[in-house]
């Protein structure tokens, strides 16, 4: 197996005590392959985020994972993450697995400069000196295309726009050269033009750095733009998986079809006639048709 991360029959249970436990992930299997982006789609409550949290060993209190999550199939030291605890997990998390979440403001410390936040992980995990960590921090900011990296090192998170903050969060995730990157709704909080830039960055990073990426999102447009493989989750199970083209263009499971049909792209406009009082709307009908054929191919 050439997977950087292999998930087999993963089950996640949440809840306090022995009773009232609910299984939110019900036996899923996935392979994350270097250089490829594996999409995990689903609505809220489908278990997609809990899958990511189980990989990170960050389940809520009382949550347990069973099954198998093996990191490092692709030539790196192999470790089983299910059942791992404490210090051992901390050496994996942030070092061999990087993570990016929806809200960059929540994942960056507001009172620490961007340079220190980048350097901290590298000094702890890689044992770099202060000066080396600083040099590498500037390189990382350049890698994620933050303008003026040297200057940016001195600044605090609030001095950046939302898009730049997410780029910084990605730089931190990549600081220790992880084999796997988990991205949970990485563009959901961003404006659409800023999102486009982040999608380009994630796609390039996966390919150029041979990163195995798990992209968790409910936005099928985002998924279609950058995922290589797609798995659709519902009620804790993967109901359909396959290549991006297969899943989007020839969906087999009724639920996948339902999700795709619910997207605005798949629907006809409800605005058939121009507002009756509008000033002489020249030829609205042909315009509306043109919009449909152009966008719904």
């Amino acid at each position, binding site marked *: 197996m050439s997977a950087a991360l292999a998930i087999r029959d993963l089950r996640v249970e949440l809840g306090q005590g022995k009773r009232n436990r609910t299984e939110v992930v019900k036996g899923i299997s996935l392979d994350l392959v270097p250089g490829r982006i594996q999409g995990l789609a689903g609505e809220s*409550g489908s278990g997609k985020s809990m899958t990511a949290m189980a990989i990170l060993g960050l389940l809520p209190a009382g949550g347990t994972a069973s099954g198998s999550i093996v990191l490092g199939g692709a030539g790196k030291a192999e470790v089983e993450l299910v059942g791992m605890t404490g210090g051992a997990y901390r050496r994996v998390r942030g070092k061999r697995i990087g993570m990016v979440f929806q809200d960059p403001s929540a994942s960056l410390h507001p009172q620490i400069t961007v340079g220190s936040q980048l350097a901290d992980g590298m000094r702890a995990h890689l044992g770099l000196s202060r000066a080396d960590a600083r040099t590498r921090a500037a390189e990382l900011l350049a890698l994620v295309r933050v303008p003026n990296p040297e200057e940016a090192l001195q600044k605090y998170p609030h001095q950046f726009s939302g898009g730049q903050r997410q780029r910084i969060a990605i730089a931190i995730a990549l600081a220790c050269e992880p084999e796997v990157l988990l991205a949970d709704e990485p563009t959901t909080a961003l404006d659409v*033009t800023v999102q*486009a830039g982040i999608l380009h960055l994630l796609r390039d990073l996966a390919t150029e750095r041979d990163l195995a990426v798990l992209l968790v999102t409910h936005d099928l447009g985002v998924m279609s733009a950058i995922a290589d493989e797609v798995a659709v989750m519902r009620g804790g199970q993967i109901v359909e998986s396959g290549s991006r083209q297969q899943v989007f263009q020839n969906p087999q499971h009724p639920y996948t079809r339902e999700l795709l049909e619910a997207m605005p792209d798949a629907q006809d406009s409800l*605005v058939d006639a121009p507002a009756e009082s509008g000033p002489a*709307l020249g030829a609205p009908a042909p*315009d509306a048709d043109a919009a449909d054929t152009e966008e719904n191919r």
Partner: protein
Amino acid sequence: MSAQKPVLHVDSLVVEYGGRAAFRAVDGVSFDIAAGEVLALVGESGCGKSSTARAVIGMEKPRSGEVLYRDRPVQPLGMRTRPAELTAIQMVFQDPNSSLNPRIRVAQQIAEGSRAARARGVDTEAPSHWLKAVGLSPTLENRYPYQLSGGQRQRVAIARALAAKPDLIVADEPISALDASAQASVAGMMRELCVASGAAMLFISHDLSVVRLMADRVAVMYRGRIVESGATPVVWANPVHPYTEALLDAIPHPDGEGVLPAAPASEAPSSWRTDIPEALDRVR
């Protein structure tokens, strides 16, 4: 522009925050909305679309300019109860968790809307009717908001606004907290209910692909100004302003082709700031 007077008339609206060196969030915005018409105000975070909405309902005092509802200025909201006739303006906010009262059952929340209608002497239906109208089961009547999912809560907030039999609905990002799979259907439902009742709707969103489905006209805002406006199909098919073009090009489409959406060269190219007169009030 029409024989009928518009329900809402906004002229040269300016909203500023702060005292000296104030930040101008809305910089001279003008539009009309007619009865039974949906106008979408589209733009990215910080463009002034929410400030415009707040000024329209009187939650924000305009620095200058005019907001006329049925020919009368909208009074700023204060500590006092609104005059009954202004309850014909109803609002739907982005976050149902902060707009619903957590201690009141669903039926009573909706009944508050009905009371506003009756105070104006307008008949309205029972809460169960409005629950059905927004696609919820009437059996939810006795639930508290915390017993509902986020999507159900937002539908309750919409039901409450509709129960007041509004003449003007101002909806500020009403669908962005919903799952992608529910957004288009809830937006479509809002349009149909609004058109059916002859109300005017100001629909605020950052999502042009949903707006395409349900707005008669669209106004694209950037940095406090409307940079492009007109009939939705026209603007969608053939944008004139570079900012509108960038917004449309950046939408990723779920077609499985793996096409990366076009990203602007920098986060905010200077061409986005230009005023292009022919991009306004487009009909063709």
